[in-house]
């Protein structure tokens, strides 16, 4: 076991940190106000390689793998949680097409995503069911050389900033009755729905899509007909969970730093409050969670890079890191005392951002279903 990062990985971290610290803060005030993704940053992020980090070089990506991606998202999240949220969903779009697309589909769509010409997303969640994927009501019926899509998709990150979406809909019944499609924004019958107003991770657009007899060419079927559940599950469990975990990890890192700085500067009773044992214990707890989550996130992404089965580890990293980020942020607010509830201080945003990561990209409850399986299966009689 080698717990060290390579020189390349250290350089990567340093490079992203510099990018994040310089480019994100000037945009953050507007993001908090409007909730809009700063489109002006898409090209610079593409230029350094953020948008194409997991996409193979043949399709305009950098092909650096999931551990590198975790480092990138973590460093972005340390400055502004909304950025990795938007980027990780973008990567889900990349992964779905990369893993299940034909060469033609990859030529047509994947390169554009990797190079940041547009943003990617995978539309799974239906108003009828998020966690209950099979319960979705969106349908797709083959008529001649087109599929006709009907239904709505909600809580989609990047919905309004994407030129095309990967959409999962029912072509049959049950687990083998879903299919994945690449739907162009301009497809007849495709409509942008409402934009959501989240209380955290503001700057990652979240919205609804509506399909009213939407025509999707047959060639845009992604993967096999009936294989849609597989597309959704693989993308969510391997790309989505690691992405959300890394986002939360960045937020948790920032929380630790804010709390540590404040505790070391704030003077009460003639000393910085970091001299008080109660505060020290809070900091110890925050730091312990940070270290644990780092290990969980890095291990899960390492396993993915090795081609190992990792859905349990990704579920654990996602649920545990998001939960820890919220708990740490709560403690950090309390360390700040009444300063912690003032908007001028970062901790309130970190708390809101952390909370949004909890249900996004997979609830804790679903994660625990996965973990329970791993916990009990060895003892099944």
């Amino acid at each position, binding site marked *: 076991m080698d717990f060290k990062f390579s*020189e*390349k990985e*250290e*350089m*990567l971290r*340093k*490079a992203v940190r*510099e*990018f994040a610290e310089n480019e994100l803060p000037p945009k953050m005030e507007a993001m908090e106000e409007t909730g809009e993704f700063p489109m002006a940053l898409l090209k*610079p992020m593409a*230029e*350094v*390689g*953020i948008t194409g*980090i997991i996409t193979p070089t043949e399709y305009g990506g*950098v092909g*650096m793998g999931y551990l*590198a991606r975790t480092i990138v998202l973590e460093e972005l999240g340390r400055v502004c949680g909304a950025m990795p949220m938007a980027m990780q969903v973008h990567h889900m779009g990349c992964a779905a097409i990369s893993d299940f697309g034909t060469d033609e589909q990859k030529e047509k769509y994947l390169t554009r995503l990797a190079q940041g010409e547009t943003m990617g997303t995978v539309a799974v969640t239906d108003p009828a069911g998020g966690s209950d994927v099979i319960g979705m009501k969106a349908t797709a019926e083959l008529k001649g050389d087109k599929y006709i899509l009907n239904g709505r998709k909600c809580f989609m990150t990047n919905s309004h900033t994407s030129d095309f979406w990967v959409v999962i809909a029912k072509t049959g019944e049950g687990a083998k009755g879903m299919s994945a499609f690449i739907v162009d924004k301009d497809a007849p019958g495709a409509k942008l729905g409402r934009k959501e107003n989240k209380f955290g991770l503001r700057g990652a657009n979240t919205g609804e899509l509506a399909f009213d007899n939407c025509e999707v060419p047959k060639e845009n079927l992604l993967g096999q007909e009936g294989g849609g559940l597989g597309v959704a599950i693989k993308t969510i469990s391997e790309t989505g969970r690691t992405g959300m975990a890394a986002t939360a990890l960045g937020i948790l890192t920032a929380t630790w730093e804010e709390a540590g700085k404040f505790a070391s500067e704030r003077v009460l009773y003639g000393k910085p409050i970091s001299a008080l044992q109660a505060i020290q214990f809070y900091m110890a707890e925050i730091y312990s969670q940070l270290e644990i989550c780092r290990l969980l996130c890095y291990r899960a992404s390492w396993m993915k890079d090795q081609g190992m089965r990792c859905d349990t580890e990704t579920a654990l990293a996602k649920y545990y890191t998001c939960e820890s980020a919220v708990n740490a942020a709560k403690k950090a607010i309390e360390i700040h005392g009444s300063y912690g509830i003032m908007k001028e201080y970062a901790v309130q945003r970190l708390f809101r951002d952390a909370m949004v990561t909890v249900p996004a990209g997979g609830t804790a409850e679903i994660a625990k279903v996965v973990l329970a399986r791993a916990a009990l299966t060895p003892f099944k009689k």
Partner: protein
Amino acid sequence: MNRIIVCVKPVPDPRHWDKVTMDPATMTLKREGIPSILNPLDKHALEAALTIRESRGGEVVSLTMAPPFVDSILREGLAMGADRAVLLSDPAFAGSDTLATALILAAGCKWIGEFDLVLCGNLSIDGSTAQICSQLGELLDLPSVMHVIGLEWLDNDRAIITQRIEHGRVRMEAASPIVVSVLKELNKPRYIPFTGILEAESKELKVISNQDLKIDPGLIGLNGSPTKMAGLEVRRFERKRERVEGSIDEIVQALADKIHQYGII
């Protein structure tokens, strides 16, 4: 354009400067635990070189005089886009002042071979002497221009250079080869692209010593430097919290005296 040499220097990270201590015996600064970064202005110099290479071709070589353990900093320059890196490292170089350093860098430039342009940052954030550009130019017997905020390379191996002076700008036309030091207004350095990080691994980073440069040891290092350190002090800011009391008149006089003492009036 054949070759641009960019002089880059690792400097202690300013975010950790408050950790510096001094060894009173040797009167040197102890930098343990203080990480290094690439001197910020040197990034602007690298960016200028890379921009010229994009339109005019040629090779960009980074040149550094430093102790041997600065690999990762130099790899950053390679990741940014430099083609190769040359590190001049030798115990004989240690303690060199600016004249000695310029002598060593000049020897390094000559060792690298023919070049059209030498770029460096106007100053480094630690020593901040801003003396290398002019001295390097003199020792290479080449024209030099400092405080550069505009650099346009023309077809006929000439350049239009804009220099910032107090209250104004000077525009000049120069022939290559030339030594130029840049200010941050010149450009916005590109962020290190991830592809660059992957490529940097296989780019050449060559370490050469005085055995290769063969500079007279009497002209370099601590002993060969004309300037010597006679005293060194690390400043720690501790507020004085001096209460000024008395009649209004007395207070006002005391304040005016303080303002005078601080050198303001």
